[in-house]
């Protein structure tokens, strides 16, 4: 950490800080909903639950909602009128996002930005600041380190907060983040505070498996993987798609119409490569007819196609698919088996 890039926020000033943010921004933060910890829009600074662990949902929802209107239409007697909402840049802050989720946004940026930008995503993204929260206690299902990230990685964040007990060290990770640190309740950081933040980062990382997964796997996937191996790996998969819904980088969607009699909406909703209807054509033909092909697509998309096409891995190691899978299919084990498998 470079001293000029880090300032201090005392915890007793956090609530007032959040209240200030709420005046100018839509703020998303971890909140308790029943037994769940969710990243959700907050109305009050006291709603925020900054506790160990990560939210059940990923940060993608704030930029790529599960259901989103593309336009509304009115269709009457053969005539159609399409109403598209005017484009606005919504100012929002994603507060307390874990480094894995913040890093996931970089992949979404590449997919939804690029040559043919998606207006719904990029408009939200342009006005969004990400205030990451470093992980002091990574959980056993976390494997960000193996995916090129880390528990204190600032990739994808504008500011990264590190919990020092009674205060946060706040690191600027972007130009916009740096500008933000100049004002507000921040104090200069002392040498000990910087050292403490460094130490916390090291300790958090040392508690995790350091083995890299991505590169060897990408190389391995350049050669065909035996069909029998795919079949064996996916035998227990139910195709429920929870892994893709909770994944911070999964972004497949469907476009459909929701119609009343003469009016309706064209919406986009999350879809999943694990669902049987995802690729089935109207003729009945399906290029991915069974769970084996669908599971293979998920792995190939994340660990071969995205690295090839976008030079990024489609996995940030958040471990949600590991903890939430109803049949305990652990993607780390799957990847290990593939990496070790002989070429056909």
């Amino acid at each position, binding site marked *: 950490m470079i001293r000029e890039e880090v300032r201090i926020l005392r915890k007793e000033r956090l609530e007032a800080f959040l209240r200030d943010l709420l005046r100018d921004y839509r703020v998303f933060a971890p909140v308790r909903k029943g037994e769940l910890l969710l990243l959700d829009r907050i109305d009050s600074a006291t709603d925020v639950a900054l506790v160990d662990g990560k939210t059940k949902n990923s940060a993608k929802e704030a930029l790529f909602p599960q259901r989103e209107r593309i336009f509304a239409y009115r269709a009457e007697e053969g005539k159609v009128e399409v109403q598209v909402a005017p484009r606005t840049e919504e100012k929002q802050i994603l507060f307390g996002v874990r480094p894995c989720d913040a890093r996931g946004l970089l992949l979404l940026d590449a997919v939804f930005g690029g040559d*043919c930008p998606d207006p719904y995503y990029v408009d939200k993204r342009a006005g969004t600041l990400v205030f990451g929260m470093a992980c002091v206690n990574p959980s056993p299902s976390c494997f960000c380190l193996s995916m090129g990230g880390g528990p204190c990685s600032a990739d994808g964040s504008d500011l990264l907060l590190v919990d020092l007990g009674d205060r946060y060290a706040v690191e600027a990770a972007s130009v916009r983040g740096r500008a933000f640190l100049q004002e507000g309740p921040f104090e200069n950081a002392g040498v000990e505070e910087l050292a403490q933040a460094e130490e916390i980062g090291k300790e958090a990382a040392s508690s995790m498996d350091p083995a890299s997964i991505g590169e060897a796997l990408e190389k391995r996937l350049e050669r065909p993987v035996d069909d029998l191996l795919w079949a064996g790996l996916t035998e227990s998969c139910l195709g429920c798609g929870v892994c893709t819904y909770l994944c911070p980088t999964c972004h497949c969607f469907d476009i459909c119409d929701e119609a009343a009699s003469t009016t309706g909406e064209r919406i986009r909703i999350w879809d999943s490569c694990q669902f049987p209807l995802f*690729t089935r054509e109207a003729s009945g033909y399906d290029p991915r007819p069974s769970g084996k092909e669908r599971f293979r697509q998920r792995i190939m998309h994340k660990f071969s196609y995205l690295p090839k096409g976008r030079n990024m891995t489609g996995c940030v190691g958040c471990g949600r698919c590991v903890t939430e899978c109803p049949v305990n299919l652990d993607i780390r084990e799957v990847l290990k088996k593939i990496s070790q498998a002989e070429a056909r």
Partner: protein
Amino acid sequence: MENPYVPFLMKIEEIITETEDEKIKTFVLSFAREEDKERFAYIPGQFAEISVFGKGEAPFGMASTPTVPERLEFSVSKIGVVTGALHNMEKGDTVGVRGPLGNGYCLEAFRGRNLLLVGGGFGFSTLRSLTNYILHERNRKTFGDLTVVYGARRPGLLLYRRDLEAWGQRTDLRLHLTVDQKEEGDEWQGRVGLVPNVIRSLAPGPGNTVAVVCGPPAMMRFTLPVLRDLGFGDENILLSLEKRMKCGIGKCGRCNVGSKYVCSDGPVFSQAELARL
């Protein structure tokens, strides 16, 4: 920046029933707003998403030629929800059209070369677009010999009868029509046989020639080895792929072939490209 998800509104000018089973109709569309015509500048081989409001969108290759930009045509086989709804629509109704999408044929690379177009069934709509483009008086001289091989299961399923008749009269195009089978009572005087077999017997030379193939997967699969046997290199065999698509702009994640998206990297690929995937 334009919104790539919002369709142009278009009016149905004419509906042509193409086949004897009435399952394929061609919809002739005109732009509701004149300025949209310029914004929808397309080339043969590209496609568009057609909206039936309240039912959704489905992708179709343009069947018309950009040399007649005010008349956009799509041939639609009645098979699912959107296509079923389209078939129930009438002249004067409004649909949405989003596009043009995809890469289309690289016309610059075709100039000065001979072209062998191989089509089957419904996939012929794209090759009809290309053929009419090439035959346009402004364009014809810039291309070499043009050979079109087109097959349907039965004579009554051949599309674009009016075009086929006109092409048959021309001397600057060799047209070979074939049907898989002829039934008792068919007046069909032409060829009977599967497209790959017809290609083999015609034995077109590969010299300075690009083979452009569009048709059902089985036809493409069996045509490929025949073309290779005739000496066509993989880089000179172009295939149009078809997949279920939604966004059409490489984002929604469903139409992968290997690391490529059919919608935005294709739908036209050379066999050489496909072999690398």
